[in-house]
């Protein structure tokens, strides 16, 4: 019984949150990796683009709520997301046309494009803060829990409860579906294949008649979809605050590099690697050992490897180690 309690404890405090957080990071990381693989620069505006998509989602959600439209148990934001995606794609293509295209055509070095993306970051951040303000906003409605901790305790008779929020299940579900569609698209369709070819060897791809404009446009469209859904899911699960989104850029970068930048599947797994290691290292295992070990051996301290303050530092340290030992990422395989 104690053993079961210990497992439920880990599930509740490590596994479910890490899986959710990992999914959110994974979407962002695939976004970074796609831009890096095809447009060949590190996009420092990632976090703020996600914030922009989320902001549009929130505004549309508010509009729907004011009209009285809702999905019942599911959050209203789900109907708002498709509209937000359309808007976001427009924004991405607008930025590309007026900002990034010039440097791409001129074959500027990647560093210059990264600098330009910092300019985009500043502007996007300003637009988000001017439109919706810097404060914390929750826009989750509908049923909050699938299983409440107390219900679970009653159901199973265990001491430990397992609480599963509907936003968590939603996040994991949507991520898996989206990522499967994306991989199917990249691996099976002609357009996807042309994107991979372009990423592999630009000159060769051009020679074989692939239209670079189309590839770039589709990349931005996919990026818009990923940014909006990733941002909205994070906002549904936690809350929307522009500054947090900017900060999330850092673990997202870490995930993309850990997975091998330019490699979407690596980025997908990288998100989970970062999320799990952050939570594993900063979780206090005292209660877990209390269940597993006999009473005489109970630990006195919290049995916490690092305090939760260092959550971000953990993922960054992993990144530094990966950069040192395997600069191409921990997952070998074909790039994009």
């Amino acid at each position: 019984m104690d053993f079961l309690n210990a497992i439920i404890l880990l599930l509740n405090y490590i596994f479910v949150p890490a899986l959710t957080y990992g999914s959110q990071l994974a979407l962002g990381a695939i976004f970074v990796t796609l831009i890096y693989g095809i447009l060949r620069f590190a996009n420092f505006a990632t976090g703020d683009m996600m914030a922009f998509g989320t902001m549009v989602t929130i505004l549309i959600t508010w509009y729907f709520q004011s009209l009285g439209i809702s999905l019942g148990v599911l959050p209203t934001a789900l109907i708002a997301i498709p509209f937000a995606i359309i808007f976001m794609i427009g924004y991405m293509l607008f930025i590309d046309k007026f900002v990034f295209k010039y440097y791409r055509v001129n074959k500027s070095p990647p560093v210059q494009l990264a600098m330009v993306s910092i300019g985009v970051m500043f502007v996007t951040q300003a637009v988000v803060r001017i439109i919706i303000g810097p404060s914390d906003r929750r826009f989750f409605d509908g049923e909050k829990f699938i299983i409440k901790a107390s219900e679970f305790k009653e159901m199973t008779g265990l001491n430990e409860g397992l609480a599963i929020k509907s936003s968590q299940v939603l996040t994991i579900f949507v991520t898996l579906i989206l990522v499967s569609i994306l991989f199917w698209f990249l691996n099976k369709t002609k357009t996807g294949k042309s994107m991979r070819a372009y990423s592999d060897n630009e000159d060769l791809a051009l020679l074989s008649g692939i239209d670079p404009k189309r590839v770039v446009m589709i990349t931005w469209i996919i990026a818009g979809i990923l940014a909006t859904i990733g941002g909205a899911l994070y906002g549904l699960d936690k809350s929307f605050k522009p500054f947090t989104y900017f900060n999330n850029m850092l673990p997202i970068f870490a995930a993309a590099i850990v997975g091998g930048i330019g490699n979407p599947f690596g980025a997908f797994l990288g998100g989970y690697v970062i999320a799990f290691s952050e939570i594993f290292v900063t979780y206090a295992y005292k209660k877990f050992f209390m269940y597993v070990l006999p009473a005489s051996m109970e630990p006195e301290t919290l049995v916490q490897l690092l305090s939760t303050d260092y959550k971000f530092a953990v993922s960054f340290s992993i990144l530094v180690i990966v950069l040192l030992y395997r600069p191409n990422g921990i997952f070998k395989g074909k790039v994009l």
Partner: protein
Amino acid sequence: MRKNLNVIAAYGIMLVLIILVGIFQSWNVALSIFNMCLISAVMTMGANVQWGYAGLINFGLMGYAALGGLAAVLISVDPVQEAWAVGGFNIIMCLGLIVIMIFAIRFVLKIFEKSKIRTYGIVAIIITGIIILRITSEQSIEAIEAVNPATTGFLGGLGLPIIFSWIVGAFFAAGLAFIVGKVALGLRADYLAIATLLISEIVIAIIKHEDWLTRGVKNVIGLKRPVPYEVELQTKEWFVNLVTEFNSGKLELISNITDKQAALNQLIIEGSSVFVKLCYSGLFLIVVIALLIVTQKALYSPWGRMMRAIRDNEEAANAMGKNVVKQHLLIFILGSAIVGIAGAMLVTQDGLFTPGSYRPMRYTFLIWVMVIVGGSGNNFGAILGGFAVWFLWIEAAPIALFLINLFTIGLHETNALKVHLIESVPYFRYLMMGMGLLLIMRYRPKGILPEKIEIK
């Protein structure tokens, strides 16, 4: 003279702008902008040495600035005897332990061949080291943090004049840069950018949460000053005389004695804060000018030419027998040390150390905007960038307010859109920075004052 005309014109415009602020807003505001401009200029010089001279991209400026600030605390604050008594020995032991750990790793690296087992061994050393550190330090850290937590709760510093911290801050930053450089400099440009950004976040996390060293988010306030305090100045006779003489024309117009005294008091209070700011300006100017002379000399020395050669073509420079790796490390350390000085100067001027305020937006990306806008590779350009961008950063809100009022002049005061826009005035500075950066990168990619290569 002719060829330097644009430099002189640009600096002239900047000076006029600051003087205009002095006339229209107040001299206090103008001087505080000027001081911050000087500090920004030091930071941009640091970034410029790395990016403009050597083409190294360092997005970790925030970390070095914070270390400089930490130096200001550790140098100037008086040591907390009680805290040293309860936990000092233990902390020193822990530092020893870290040193032993480093040597153990070096030993393993030296003795054993490169293999999987060696890697695992190093990981094992690090993990056991961290566990031992946590166990040995936990109690003493708690004890230190329990010593009068409202005012101290940390070990304190050395109690020396704060001006020394400018040098120590440079050494702290240089030390960190040495480690980061050893680790990350081999990476490609954009990887290096990300790696340095993340490492600086780690540094900030440590400074924020190691309360026994830095007081963390509780902040250290009331640091010593290298310049007189306003309150003391106001009682000094020579200062009162100075103010009276300075404003004699204004004071003569007032005939009533009590009114005259009140006006004089007001002037003394204002004058004292202006005087203090002027003292800071003097100190900062000395640093800026000294650094400018040194960096300018370096730029045109054989060493500077070598750095440019490395920047423009690494392989060719390497083929000519220049040690690219070593020079990269050297310039990374030098640039970071300059940023460390700026960090210490900033904390000295503010008189307080607030780890929570170190955010990449303000301390990394804004400085980069300054370098790019000013002109990378050109020290005068970098300094001008520091001045212009900081000026805009501060004055963006009033400018935005003015523009909003201008464009919404037809709308009523309570119009929802107008109210909303006026509420979000502080965020227009990000918009201006972003637009400025994008426009400069597009239409003047070398910055306002581009790099000029002249062989003398």
